[in-house]
């Protein structure tokens, strides 16, 4: 029976020759990822064994990854204590894929996993983080789960009672215009399908625009698949996946480029011609409230955020730097940059990207998640507006329910930092051009957000 890539991966992981959407399976887990919420997982894990007389041991310490990224370095005694408890657990259980708060190993979980070679095509990845969908970019079936579910995975090594999801095939044709980015593509898709348009379903990405997209861009697409409700967002692995795993992740083992069957059955097929795509902005307070840039151009912003698990990769920072190089961000605007990992931080430092950003007035932050979800630095004041390359703009998201968050690509964020209001990147600017003079609009071109 012909299978989608999700069906194929789940069949293999469940020891079956075929599965179909709706079947209930128990796939073995290849990688189980947690961050600071590992503290809650530990509680639930111990609770499973309470009163049984059985020693609480994880099923396979080499398949558990724990990365500190949500509040680094700790912002409170409570967080520091949670992190300490996790370190003790990691040592006690012999967990090897542990990334502490250090510039030689740390970063955001959704960058650390790919760049460390922990995620392989065809594997099953679970994470106590909804953006675990990110790892579908490498051809894995990767999905978010809660802490108790993770405790169960730690105990049994399988994802319990998973209903094989239906798949939406997304075919992206054409070539993207200059500066239009994977972020614009995924925002466009979410806007079309709505925040629940793919609930309980999987995206499978196809088409020449995907084939021509580097892994960094695919990670952005898969990262935000969950914002349409998708369980997973999978890019079937290809030669680019192989290149990334070998050259970037340094993976030396076998790579199996698992593919869907040509005649697989899809719940829906969505076709997008990305040569017609323009800049997309997700407006407050839902990610599917997506508008093309002309509808919100000129909206005054107070804080620009570039980075995160969505758009904190080396080429994202480089695009922003190419627009800001030799210029200064507008008065009254603050700009925060969160590289997705310390490796990206170091590489961007070496290439002069961070220097360009700092010279323009941007602040380079720790790789981490804290600002995006409003738990650690970068909070917004009452009535303030942020324009951010992160993935969520829900009420209260950046720490203040009386503030507003708009979402965009790194290029739009950088262009807007120069003007102080939502602006499109300059026409005719190539990514490596350094002498471009960005035409600053008049101050009164900015309007207050509605």
């Amino acid at each position: 029976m012909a299978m989608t890539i999700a069906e194929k991966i789940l069949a293999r992981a469940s020891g079956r020759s075929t599965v179909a959407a709706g079947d209930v399976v128990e796939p073995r887990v290849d990688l189980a990822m947690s961050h600071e919420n590992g503290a809650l997982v530990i509680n639930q894990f111990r609770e499973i064994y309470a009163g049984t007389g059985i020693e609480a041991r994880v099923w396979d310490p080499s398949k558990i990854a724990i990365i500190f990224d949500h509040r680094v370095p700790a912002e409170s005694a409570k967080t520091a204590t949670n992190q300490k408890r996790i370190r003790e657990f990691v040592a006690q259980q012999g967990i090897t894929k542990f990334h502490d708060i250090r510039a030689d190993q740390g970063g955001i979980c959704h960058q650390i996993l790919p760049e460390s070679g922990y995620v392989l095509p065809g594997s099953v990845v679970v994470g106590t983080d909804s953006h675990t969908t990110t790892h579908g970019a490498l051809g894995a079936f990767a999905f978010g789960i809660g802490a108790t579910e993770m405790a169960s995975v730690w105990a049994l090594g399988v994802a319990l009672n998973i209903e094989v999801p239906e798949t939406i095939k997304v075919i992206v044709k054409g070539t993207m215009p200059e500066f239009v980015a994977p972020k614009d593509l995924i925002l466009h898709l979410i806007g079309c399908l709505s925040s629940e348009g793919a609930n309980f379903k999987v995206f499978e990405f196809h088409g020449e625009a995907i084939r021509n997209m580097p892994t960094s861009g695919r990670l952005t697409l898969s990262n935000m698949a969950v914002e349409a409700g998708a369980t997973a967002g999978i890019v079937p692995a290809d030669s680019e996946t192989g290149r990334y795993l070998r050259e970037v992740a340094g993976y030396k083992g076998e790579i199996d480029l698992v593919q869907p069957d040509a005649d697989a059955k899809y719940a829906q097929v969505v076709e997008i011609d990305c040569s017609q795509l323009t800049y997309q902005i997700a407006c407050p307070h839902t990610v599917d409230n997506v508008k093309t840039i002309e509808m919100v151009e000129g909206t005054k912003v107070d804080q620009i955020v570039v980075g995160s698990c969505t758009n904190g990769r080396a080429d994202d920072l480089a695009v922003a730097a190419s627009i800001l190089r030799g210029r200064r961000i507008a008065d009254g605007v603050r700009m925060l940059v969160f590289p997705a990992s310390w490796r990206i931080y170091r590489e961007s430092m070496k290439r002069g990207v961070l220097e360009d950003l700092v010279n323009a007035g941007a602040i380079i932050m720790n790789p981490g998640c804290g600002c995006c979800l409003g738990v650690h630095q970068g909070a917004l004041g009452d009535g303030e507006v942020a324009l951010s390359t992160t993935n969520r703009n829900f009420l209260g998201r950046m720490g203040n329910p009386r503030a507003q968050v708009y979402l965009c690509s790194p290029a739009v964020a950088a262009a807007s930092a120069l003007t102080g209001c939502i602006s499109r990147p300059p026409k005719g600017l190539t990514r490596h051009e350094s002498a471009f003079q960005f035409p600053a609009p008049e101050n009164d071109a900015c309007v207050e957000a509605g």
Partner: protein
Amino acid sequence: MNQHSSSPLLKTTLVWKLDDDVSTDVIYPGRYMATVLPTETPQYAFADLPDLNKKLASGEFPRGSALVAGKNFGCGSSREQAASTLKGYDLAVIARGFARIFLQNAINLGLRTIVCPDIEASVGDQLEISADRVVNTTTGKSFPITPLPKSRQSIIDAGGLIAYTRQRVVAANR
């Protein structure tokens, strides 16, 4: 459960209505995520909706009260506190639809979640929830319930995921 499908399992009162797309950031804001114990999370339920937060925290709503929400309730973050904070008040959440991870967390923790795509009710209405429908006894209207994912039935039957996994661990060690 089927043979009792006509008799109500819960008689409750609708105490609060919510819109579509209520995210876990709204149910349990990220800034309280370092708090993980189910005994401590309820105080922060809907912290950014102060009226609702106060009414819950002050005990104004009796345990077992119902919230009614629109589509895609619990979208966003996988944070389990969003389920434990509501479980702490023993609420029944009736929604036109739930986001996947939240629904899974709710079932795992034993929070009552009822998928009722056509629900019509106003604050103060009396509701009777049975296995296959919600009856609004104030208006006399009845609304069908969409069954929870079949894959989760064994977890519900075991009394939650901890108990279910414990059974499996014990069986594997026999």
